[in-house]
């Protein structure tokens, strides 16, 4: 079941790769929060990774928070294990926490389908955008423009003009 635009996003409490626990409520006062379901092994998630990371860097000074969540079944996909997440963050430059949804409950509550699947929440924790970062994983010059537009409109207090797009990526690997 997916949350709909305007609805309050589900609360969660997940560990990042440093062992710190994060929740949406930690962001009381943040003007916008971006929740991105992603993973280690999906080519779509990997292709968009730099663009999403750059969004985290570009908007950090304005108080926007970006949380990346990996919900894939690590038993069948060891490359998405908690340890593999830690190794990846140690190896790469991550400007955002990488959270482990081991039970997959958060992904289910959000209605995430693929990686990457992007959700933008406003200051009240209400969903304002859901979908892909931009129109084409294969065009870095797109710069996650759909995501940036949504954040800009949330920051401006405006209605998000493109509140939903079709997320494109690898299906989330649900436990069987």
């Amino acid at each position, binding site marked *: 079941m997916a949350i709909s635009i305007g609805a309050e996003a589900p609360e969660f409490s997940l560990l990042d790769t440093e062992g710190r626990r994060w929740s949406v409520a930690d962001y009381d006062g943040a003007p916008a929060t971006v929740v991105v379901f992603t993973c280690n*092994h*999906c*080519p*779509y998630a*990997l*292709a968009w990774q730099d663009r999403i990371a750059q969004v985290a860097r570009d908007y950090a000074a304005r108080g926007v928070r970006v949380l990346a969540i990996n919900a894939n079944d690590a038993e*069948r*996909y*060891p*490359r998405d294990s908690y340890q593999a997440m830690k190794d990846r963050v140690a190896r790469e430059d991550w400007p955002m926490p990488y959270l482990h949804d081991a039970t997959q409950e958060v992904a289910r509550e959000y209605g995430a389908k*693929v990686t990457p699947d992007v959700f933008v929440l406003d200051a009240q924790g209400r969903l304002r955008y859901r979908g892909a970062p931009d129109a084409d*994983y*294969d065009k*870095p010059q797109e710069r996650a423009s759909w995501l940036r537009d949504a954040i800009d409109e949330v920051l401006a207090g405006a209605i998000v003009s493109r509140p939903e797009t079709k997320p*494109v*990526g*690898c*299906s989330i*690997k649900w436990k069987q």
Partner: protein
Amino acid sequence: MNVELLWWEGCPSTERALEEVREALSELGLSHVEVHTREILTDGDAREAGFVGSPTILIDGVDLVPAAAEEHIGLSCRVYRRRDGRVSPIPDPDDLREALQRAAERAEVN
């Protein structure tokens, strides 16, 4: 020449990969070559086919991009590298074209 595309429904790249294969064949004057498709449905299918991700393109039974040691057999989307280093869910079109060209040349020799 035998061209086969193995695919899994969890990846949205199948249609684009198929288009690229057909386009490459057309550019090489090989439009008459039929592209066979085979869906990989289960982990068992993946093991049997040595399937390391979708899409996998076999030309005369040989993987267009030989699987790296760290690639796991199973139902997943395959990570390819473009010639410029970018990650992609489908092979670089130049790699595809060159592999098809080589296969066509082998077929002529034989």
